[in-house]
């Protein structure tokens, strides 16, 4: 699927995808993040979208599954969070990382970012998209992308310093 077709066929159903996401995830901001993640996912696989009779229907299915996965992860995390952070001492996976090299540390930190921030930082800093392009693909405001990018970069810096200078 070409860039133009993606914009013509997928972006117009953004609103519908958002409603699906909100029905599953309830919270508005979470639904918004989920939709952006789905759109980025679809963007990266746009070459294979032509396979489907209705790319729009496919996008709907992807959104539904993505939100259900998110919900599952969220429920699991809620119950794990406490035990994870209370883990002290040398078996903390974060502390073990200290001994490893910079690249592995940064990779791990980035993998632990919220999914949307992760996708955006990779698009900007590795795949060399500009913020404006990401906004166009996700059908969001440039400012929203910038804020997520900024949060991601600041978080990576903060975690990196925490892990290496401790």
């Amino acid at each position, binding site marked *: 699927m070409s860039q133009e077709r993606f914009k013509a066929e997928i972006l117009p159903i953004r609103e519908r995808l958002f409603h699906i996401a909100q029905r599953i995830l309830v919270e508005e901001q979470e639904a918004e993040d989920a939709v952006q993640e789905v759109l980025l996912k679809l963007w990266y696989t746009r070459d294979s979208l032509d396979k489907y009779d209705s790319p729009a229907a496919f996008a709907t299915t992807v959104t539904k599954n993505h939100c259900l996965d998110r919900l599952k992860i969220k429920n699991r995390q809620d119950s794990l969070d406490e035990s994870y952070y209370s883990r002290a001492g040398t078996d903390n996976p974060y502390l073990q990382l200290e001994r490893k090299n910079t690249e592995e540390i*940064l990779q791990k930190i980035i993998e632990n970012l919220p999914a949307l921030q992760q996708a955006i930082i990779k698009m900007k*800093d*590795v795949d060399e998209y500009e913020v404006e392009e990401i906004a166009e693909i996700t059908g969001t405001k440039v400012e929203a*992308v*910038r804020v*997520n990018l*900024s949060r991601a970069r600041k978080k990576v810096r903060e975690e*990196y310093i925490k892990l290496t200078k401790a």
Partner: protein
Amino acid sequence: MKIRLQHKMKFEEANRLIERYYEGLTSGEEEKKLQQFLAQPGLPERYEPEQALLGYFNHKKEKKHISLIPYKRWASTAAVVVLVLVGSQVFFIQNQRNYAYVDGKKITNVHEIKSQALASLSDIALSTDEVEEGFKNINDNELVEQQLDVFSGLEK
């Protein structure tokens, strides 16, 4: 400590870019400049997190570029060069006399020149998928026809 920065970024500018980088305001171009600044040896310790972070991303970008530019890219570039050479050669020859050299042999027959040019074009086109892809938009025949238009006057 004084660091020589010939034609390179001053610390103030680097600091400003770093600040903008964390606000998500830098363009790809500015990030490239910042990365160049950070890649210098002997920078103060305070730049270490940025050196690590931008260095990491730069490494990822390089890896991506390397995997994206295998020989196919070179093959298509070579094909274009050959195409231009064939075209200009035919043109050049026309300017002098109505014959062409193919593999060192002098050919004066327009049809034979045409078929030789076509054959060499399809050789190129068949070399890789990507090149074939690129050629979809160009009708070989038409192209050669165009280049050889100059001969048609002579033929008649």
